[in-house]
């Protein structure tokens, strides 16, 4: 194998592909990144990485001099390309070594046994697609609410529900539920299925999307009729600008969350998002993760307080529109901020039932009387 490549495009594709490299490989070959040139005429280099859960595949245009395949340490290759000088890169294999030159820099890499490298799962058929920036913001809105504790795998995922022309993303860690809905274009209009995707992988995938273009979503468990195949073999693929990620699904049912959202509220506040976020962050400086941010809503005003007794204390007042009975309620500062962080409009609605019952944060609906596309249910902290 021998090729020349543009340094920046080469580095970008390798850095992206390296996301699936396992930190502690189950078998040594998985530490490798596979480079393939199948066809001299096509002029593309394929890159792939795999850790049995997640696979990544990218391609980059190169000047092919000789087709072939090689497996080299992915971690090392991505370190190297990120630090190369700004000259074209040349790479070739020489027996059990791979030589990389760039300007006057030369690297010799050991190759790994490519015959031992597992076959990557194939990308399932595309189920539908949606704009990359919509997908990225939707994931950013819900993924923080997934749990980082592995004891209950279901809670570490983001649940994607595809129902006709709508996709719902939802995540919960037992203390809050974030839900985002968006329009999408299904291949089959009567699609009705769901997939529980590890939040970490989904978040990484969404973060690597730059604006413009559509993301194709492919569910292996969906056949033409939209029914779900056998459990435990579920797989979802994302393709964006020629780059593909596949990940195994979490084999478990997500909670039914719709019924947990209260439908009637005792009080509602309409708040300016940015000033409220700033005020919460200021007041929360004296609180830690488990100490409460206390909110007292009254006519036209909310007072934020944190800290008590012998500890440092902070308070700040903010003008808000408030309707309903005066409400005193407390939240974990981070949970409250995560909820506000998902609101994309300038104002948010805070809906309350009771101080020990769920509260719901939503953005302003796109049109008057419409349904907000982002909902965040948060359980309060019970203050003794």
């Amino acid at each position: 194998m021998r090729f020349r490549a543009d340094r920046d495009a080469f580095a970008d594709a390798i850095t992206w592909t390296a996301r699936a490299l396992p930190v502690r490989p189950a078998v040594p070959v998985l530490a490798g990144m596979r480079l393939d040139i199948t066809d001299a005429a096509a002029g593309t280099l394929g890159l792939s990485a795999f850790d049995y859960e997640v696979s990544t595949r990218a391609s980059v245009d190169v000047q092919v001099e000789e087709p072939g395949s090689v497996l080299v340490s992915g971690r090392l290759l991505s370190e190297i390309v990120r630090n190369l000088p700004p000259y074209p890169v040349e790479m070739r294999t020489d027996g059990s070594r791979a030589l990389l030159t760039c300007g006057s820099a030369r690297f010799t890499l050991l190759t790994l046994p490519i015959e031992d490298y597992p076959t990557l799962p194939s990308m399932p058929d595309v189920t539908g697609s949606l704009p990359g920036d919509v997908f990225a913001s939707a994931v950013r809105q819900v993924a923080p609410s997934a749990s980082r504790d592995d004891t209950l795998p279901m809670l570490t995922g983001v649940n994607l529900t595809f129902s006709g022309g709508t996709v719902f993303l939802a995540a919960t860690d037992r203390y809050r539920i974030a839900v985002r809905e968006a329009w999408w274009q299904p291949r089959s209009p009567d699609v009705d299925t769901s997939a529980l995707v590890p939040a970490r992988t989904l978040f990484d995938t969404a973060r690597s999307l730059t604006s413009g273009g559509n993301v194709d979503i492919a569910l292996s468990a969906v056949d033409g009729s939209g029914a779900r195949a056998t459990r435990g073999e579920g797989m979802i693929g994302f393709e964006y600008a020629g780059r593909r990620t596949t990940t195994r699904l979490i084999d478990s049912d997500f909670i039914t969350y719709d019924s947990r959202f209260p439908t009637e509220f005792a009080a509602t506040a309409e708040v300016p998002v940015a000033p409220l976020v700033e005020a919460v962050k200021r007041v929360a400086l004296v609180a830690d993760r488990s100490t409460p941010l206390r909110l007292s809503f009254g006519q036209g005003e909310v007072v934020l307080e944190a800290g008590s007794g012998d500890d440092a204390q902070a308070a700040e007042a903010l003008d808000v529109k408030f309707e309903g009975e005066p409400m005193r309620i407390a939240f974990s500062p981070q949970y409250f901020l995560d909820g506000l962080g998902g609101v994309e409009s300038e104002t948010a609605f805070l809906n309350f039932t009771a101080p020990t019952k769920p509260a719901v944060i939503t953005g302003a609906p796109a049109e008057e009387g419409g349904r907000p596309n982002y909902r965040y249910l948060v359980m309060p902290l019970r203050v003794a």
Partner: protein
Amino acid sequence: MSRRQLERGRAVRGTVTADGIAPLGRADPDDADCVVLHIDMDAFFTSVEELRSPGLRGRPVIVGGTGPRGVVAAANYPAREYGVHSAMPMSRALRMCPDAVVRPPDGAAYRRVSAAVMDILRSVTPEVEQLSVDEAFLDVSGARRRLGGPVRIAELIRSRVHGEQGLTCSVGVAATKFAAKLASTRCKPDGLLLIPTAHVAAFLHPLPVGALWGVGDKTEQALRRLGLRTVGDVARTPPETLRHELGQALGAHLAELAWGRDPRPVTTETADKSVGAEETFDSDVRDPETIRRELLRLTEKVARRLRASGQAGRTVVVKLRRADFRTVTRSRTLGEPTDVAREVFTAAGELYEASGLSGVPLRLVGVRMEGLVPAGQIHHQLALDEPDQGWRAAERVQDEVIRRFGAGAIGPAALAFRDEDDV
């Protein structure tokens, strides 16, 4: 090295001087800045028993458990002459002193007498730090004008305790808690010892390192490896060396203490650092179900005590002692402090399972809660699937039932005795 070895067993009423201990004379004692008093009741439990049964006086008396694994809680001075001391297995104590009268501990009676003694102390000054049922520190700075110098106050306390309760106590008088406690230990029983500040170092330096507060077996061994056997050896070691060898905190602490410098003030209210309960089985238990049931029983007890004192704990500690006395402790810090037995038991049960001692014969198990905070300061993050009335509410009702109908009126079914009539 234990406190026992510091005791002389002979009544002393004196003051430390440059030439050792001299009797307190008619001259004014050198006690101007010695405002800390340590009051220690002499052989408290057995003295109370002797008070209740005057016929016991002069005979060896042991208070403690009488079961096969009973432990000596206290021994009077005649019994101590046979070598009996507290924390010794009762069986061994009775081999050493077969004629001893053994009384089971009567906590209620001891607490009553203790409360009366503490009342006497509080009539001298409100600055009383009660250490246990039979021990307290006093800061008499504010009482001097009314009652005279510290030594005079010490005499007054001794005569009032004897006159009103018929019990003797020993009082150490010094400028620091550390020195005052050593003084009372040294003059026991029925003694009084003043350590003037000028002579503290001279008094301390010949003592073995174990006399230093904070030095247990491990530290003593570490000091011995450094060739340090007496407090004086420690005092003459550069503080940097001690910090290096023993760690910052302990090294710095011992360097100060060896010169009699102890910054701890007498504090009237000491919040508990932990709440715990343990059980020694009559015979070793290997059955995991029985162990778990015992852990549940201890957990219920600990949680009830937490709730009664308005506290909640963050860290659950399980103690497991094997038949050969090898002991393991395992701890887990919870997400938020709790006073709910159900939550503590979940952690305690998992700690037992993860200890690798499941199925291993155990002689003792214990449950303790650490990281205590006032219950008024705990905040509970509600979960989505949490019922309005959870275990917390159930256990509060349980407390209420026990308060009205007594212990045993209600409890987890797993702890209930099987009723033969029950089907």
